[in-house]
């Protein structure tokens, strides 16, 4: 038996896994299917899981595998779900002008992220939006931690290049 009843695992991690899959697929319908499948698979393997396993990282690995299969099985053209990426900043940008620029820039970043190769995109999202360790990301993507780090680096470089010639919002407005 694992450490805790599986219901507690669902309660603790379902929302985060759902959000992750929604970011990755840009669709709430897919996030629904894939997050449910993630937990059904996890449930089947739950009793065999090591007592000291990192449950959260393990769930991300299952979710990532499902996401990769999803992208493999159909060479799906991702149509961004309207509202899947949403402006969510804790700050009130200083002025309407700055706010507009902030939203534009972020929309540009989203497009670049959406256009990244799957592994780079997954590594980037796992690291930057879910703060997973590189060894956990490596396990999720069946690569070394160094490769995982390189994927994130490449993703950041592409985002940075994508913003070339585009005035970046001031640090204050995104803080």
């Amino acid at each position: 038996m694992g450490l805790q009843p599986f219901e507690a695992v669902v309660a603790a991690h379902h929302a985060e896994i759902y959000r992750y899959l929604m970011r990755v697929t840009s669709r709430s319908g897919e996030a629904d299917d894939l997050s449910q499948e993630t937990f059904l698979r996890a449930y089947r393997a739950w009793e065999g899981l090591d007592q000291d396993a990192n449950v959260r990282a393990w769930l991300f690995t299952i979710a990532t595998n499902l996401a990769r299969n999803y992208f493999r099985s159909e060479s799906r053209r991702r149509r961004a779900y309207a509202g899947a990426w949403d402006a969510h900043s804790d700050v009130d940008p200083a002025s309407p002008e700055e706010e507009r620029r902030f939203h534009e820039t972020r929309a540009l970043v989203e497009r670049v992220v959406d256009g990244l190769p799957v592994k780079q995109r997954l590594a980037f999202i796992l690291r930057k939006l879910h703060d997973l360790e590189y060894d956990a990301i490596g396990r999720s993507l069946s690569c070394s931690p160094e490769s995982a780090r390189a994927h994130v680096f490449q993703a950041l470089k592409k985002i940075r290049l994508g913003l070339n010639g585009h005035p970046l919002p001031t640090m204050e407005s995104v803080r």
Partner: protein
Amino acid sequence: MTTKHPSCRAIELELVATATGDADARSAERVRQHLGGCAECREEFGRYRAVDALTRTLRAVPPPDALAQSRAGLESRLADLKHRRVTYRIFPSPLGHILIGRSEDGIAVIEYLHGGNTLGASRLARVEGVEAVPGGPELERLERELLDYIAGRRRALDWALDWRLARSDFERAVLEATAAIPYGAVASYAGVARRIGKPSAVRAVAQALRWNPLPIVVPCHRVIGTSGQLTGYAGDKLTLKQRLLSVEGIKLRPGRGDLSIARDAMYALGEGETEYCLPTCGSIGTRSLALLTLFASRADAEARGLRPCTSCRPDLHPLSAA
């Protein structure tokens, strides 16, 4: 692409890592030193800082209620999966490899495996609506208790039972009537048929017990032919039946081509009666086994709350233990 100074190219990875909060202290220090003398990289560093801050504000916001609906859908599917799930364990025993399976409701299957000692050899792999998964240590206790039972060290298996593998209401009625036959006793197929109110369904009773999904704990080994012959067990496993009956102290002797129970060495209980008799009491010795339950010992009969017959007095003239 503009050409970069080799030292700028060399430090690029560390620069990005440092700007995005992903570098160790030594990298960060190298980057700091480089930035001190390189205005271009300072600007680059600033842009990566901004990129990092920006990416951290990216957040997928599910449509209203989508998250709650997904969670509810998941919980319902999990409940269904949990209900269908049977955890199993396979272990060797003196009767051959045995599979035992348990659901959330109780023990759902006990099976003598032949043709292998993996799930593939079990009917569990082929039952619709069952999800068989290898069980954890909680099944070890059941294994121990079953082995103790087979060795005669334990007389009862007080397990909650799950009847889901019974294929019909009839089959379930047969199994429940059989489960009521006490330790150290035998009844006949015809007797079980009478007990479920279908006295002519003797062959159907035998057929139902042939597919007993819970042998041992539903003691179909205690059901014999009206002739006293053991008749059959789990297909072709008559020696197992013989062994289980012997463990319970039931005496057997060779009959015509088949082992029979030693009826004259057992106490008898008539249908609907509460007193048990010596096999020689009145006409009981000639009565059909369809109408009797036979006990190996007085203790077994009295454990069921039965009293010794006041005419033949089995309490005063017990059968010899030999």
